[in-house]
């Protein structure tokens, strides 16, 4: 059996799965230290299951790393080295970052000659002396978290690898993040991702230790995996190296969970919480990814993120007196004290659905006085907000099934335009923990190819091999890996044949023999 846990900002959800079947599930409050909330959830699962079964794996999705960046907490100083001169003069690593987060990292930026051009020619030769001087300066400052980027490193990582060797030789305890291992094309965005990752690595070590400790306190010693933002897993060792790959894993898990709970692979998923409704699209059972640059805490990155539209409609959304305006302000987690049905004095979206007799929450007599017109106006506004945004997220004209998950699913009407069907599956409240529990292992790679010089098959194989290596590093079983996505983009204004190829592979976890497997709690 396996356990899936989702640590959100407000709730920590957990499920215990026997194959496809949910044996136990629960929703606990997220604690300030995270760990006691996780322990509470595990203890509740144990209580429901009666006897602790034979456990194979525990999968955890967590927002801790995203929140650390957003709240500027737990970030370590970073030396950022870019190999790309003579291009980008006057645009050092950290350019365009908000000052407060740059201060946390210490603004230790180095730029050195080297890197490659789109056509594979060197941008400039490496400067051995400058590399050595840079390493010595970093050593003198005593900085051990290091991010290294170089121009076109996804196509040719040689300069990043050479720099890393030099750093390791001079600073034996260096913790190095190489940009080509973490991001896509787009030097600044990839470098930003590498810098955020480097800043989070000491925290990642503490987080993994705390999770392992919490599980071991409860007698669970099976392997631990953490969810990535694309709905795949990484093992505990990998998360210590790449904590930034957990960004945005929450919405991904809820989409993947919705797919499993309904058996649908092509659908719109609406996760309605207290403040927002997050709308995403399932394609082949995985979230459709965003093709835009994504800001994390004000820093522009190009992580593979699910394409999510957040609409300001949730259970706690404020409703105006005439009902014509709903959200985006919300009473959030204070819903249970401030909403009318709970004896409060704020008119919320939850009060509206109770007044309309569409849900039984709190005390319906507290909303009996609401004018019919207010209720109807608000229902119309809420429906319009969902329909308008679902329409924008839909990939084409065809109606798609719409899956409702999350605690606020009661807000949705019984039907929606553009919805082929509207489903609220059983256990929809813990869809995100379900998503964590069923995750696979994946890998992705991006290469540049010139089809006039290289066969298409050869270039695709090169991309697939790189993607498989990434997946195996994340804990995947090489034999089970399958290519799930091939994206070829011809480059505008470039010679015919110049193409960018992005490949993604997904497969099963490699069986890790574990001494503690199945130990009773």
């Amino acid at each position, binding site marked *: 059996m396996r356990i899936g846990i989702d640590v959100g900002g407000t709730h920590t959800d957990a499920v215990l799965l026997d194959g496809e079947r949910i044996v136990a599930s629960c929703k606990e409050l997220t604690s300030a230290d995270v760990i006691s909330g996780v322990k509470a959830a595990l203890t509740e699962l144990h209580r429901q299951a009666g006897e602790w079964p034979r456990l194979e794996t525990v999968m955890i999705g967590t927002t801790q790393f995203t929140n650390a960046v957003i709240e500027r907490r737990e970030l370590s100083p970073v030396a950022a080295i870019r190999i790309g001169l003579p291009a980008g003069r006057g645009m050092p690593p950290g350019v365009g970052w908000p000052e407060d987060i740059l201060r946390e990292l210490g603004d230790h930026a180095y730029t050195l000659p080297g890197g490659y051009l789109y056509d594979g020619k060197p941008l400039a030769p490496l400067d051995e002396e400058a590399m050595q001087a840079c390493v010595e300066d970093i050593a003198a400052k005593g900085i051990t978290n290091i991010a290294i980027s170089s121009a076109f490193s996804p196509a040719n990582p040689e300069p990043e690898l050479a720099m890393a060797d030099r750093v390791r030789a001079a600073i034996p305890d260096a913790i190095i993040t190489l940009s080509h291992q973490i991001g896509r094309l787009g030097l600044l965005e990839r470098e930003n991702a590498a810098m955020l990752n480097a800043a989070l690595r000491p925290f990642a070590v503490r987080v993994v230790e705390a999770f392992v400790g919490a599980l071991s306190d409860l007698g669970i010693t099976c392997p631990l995996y953490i969810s990535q933002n694309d709905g795949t897993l990484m093992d505990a060792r990998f998360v210590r190296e790449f904590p930034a790959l957990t960004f945005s894993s929450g919405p991904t898990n809820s989409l993947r969970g919705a797919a499993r709970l309904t058996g649908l692979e092509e659908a719109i998923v609406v996760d309605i919480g207290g403040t927002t409704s997050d709308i995403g699209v399932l394609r082949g059972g995985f979230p459709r990814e965003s093709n835009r640059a994504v800001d994390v805490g004000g820093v522009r990155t190009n992580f593979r993120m699910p394409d999510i539209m957040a609409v300001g409609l949730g259970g706690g959304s404020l409703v105006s007196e005439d009902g014509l305006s709903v959200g985006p302000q919300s009473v959030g987690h204070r819903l249970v004290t401030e909403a009318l049905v709970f004896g409060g004095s704020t008119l919320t979206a939850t009060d509206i659905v109770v007044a309309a007799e569409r849900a039984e929450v709190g005390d319906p007599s507290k909303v009996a006085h609401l004018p019919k017109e207010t209720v109807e106006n608000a229902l119309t506004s809420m429906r319009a907000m969902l329909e308008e945004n679902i329409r924008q997220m839909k990939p084409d004209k065809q109606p798609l099934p719409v899956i409702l998950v999350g605690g606020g699913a009661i807000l949705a009407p019984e039907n929606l335009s553009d919805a082929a069907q509207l489903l609220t599956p059983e256990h929809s409240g813990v869809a995100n923990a379900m998503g964590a529990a069923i995750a696979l292992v994946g890998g992705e790679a991006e290469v540049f190819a010139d089809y006039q010089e290289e066969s298409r098959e050869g270039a695709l194989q090169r991309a697939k091999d790189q993607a498989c290596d990434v997946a195996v590093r994340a804990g995947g079983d090489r034999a089970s890996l399958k290519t799930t996505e091939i994206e070829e983009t011809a480059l505008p204004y470039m*010679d015919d044949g110049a193409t960018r190829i992005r490949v993604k592979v997904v497969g099963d976890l490699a069986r890790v023999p574990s001494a503690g497997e199945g130990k009773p709690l």
Partner: protein
Amino acid sequence: MSGQITLEMLDDIAAGAAFLATGGGGDPHLACLCAKEGLKAYGPARMIAPEELADDAFVIAVGAVGAPTTSLELLPSIDEAVRVVKAYAEIVGRRPDALVSFEIGGSNSLIPIVAAAALGIPLIDGDGMGRALPEATMMTYAIAGISPTPAVGLDYAGNTERFDAPDVQAYEPMIRRFAMERGGMAVSAEFGMTGAHLKACIVPKTVTLSAELGRFLRTGEGNAAEREADLAKLFQGTIYGPLELIASGLVSDYTSKVVGGFDVGEATLECVVKGEEPLKVSVKNEYLAVKQAGRMIACLPDLITLVDFETGWPINAERLRFGQRVSVFRIGSPAHYTTPEGLASLQPLIDTVQG
């Protein structure tokens, strides 16, 4: 307007330039970041109106040429526009009295600002397109018969090359080849001209208009329909014809593919007003034409801009997708492109929407 371009104005200029780019011009994010670092290093730039320029003054046009996709990895440098102007002055033997932009649409609106700031040479409030267009042959300077050469190209490493060509048709492939051989992106200084020549062919006041448009988009409220009247006012008294909201609707279909280095496609908009035929928007890097039931209702040289209905922010053609609720604005073309010579320069683009 004569005055200063300060760091604080750059975001607004970039946003306004995206509006005038009619769907093209690339993502100005990197260029804006580079211009900001440039003005932090060099201070503000001085801007003058074309009429402030003496007839015998010497002006050159400065900007970037190449494939925007490669600049994802080949970062711009804050001093490259500065160096290409210096190189031009040295190679051609004359220091310019003023600088002017190739095109206001997209990244090229921002590149000459840094050179102006660093060198203390004023930037002319205006440009050579009034929008974004794909080739040097379509610049108003070329349409007026001004020779683009002698011209100087500068690559990422600071290497320069002088170009001499009999006409702009011969020059265009030379500078493009230079860019492609040097990492896909280069800056160039070209179209050396007198103040009198510039005044006869420039699309005037477009930098000021961009800044005003950007500020309007950032600070205003209301959807595109509600903002139409105020937007129209911004274009009143400018070189452009009137701005008009021609439709709002949902993108019900959009497909595009790369043909000969251009992003070519057609978007279908279902009108919000029931019973009306859907609109077809032709795209070739930029929005070129809008048809309804086979009838042309807007076409190049008019400017066609698609904006997000809720906010009025311009939508780059690369970002257009199914389900977006958009509004379509038509803005009358500056007179530069309605003359026989102006229309002839755009004929390759016009052919693609009529053929």
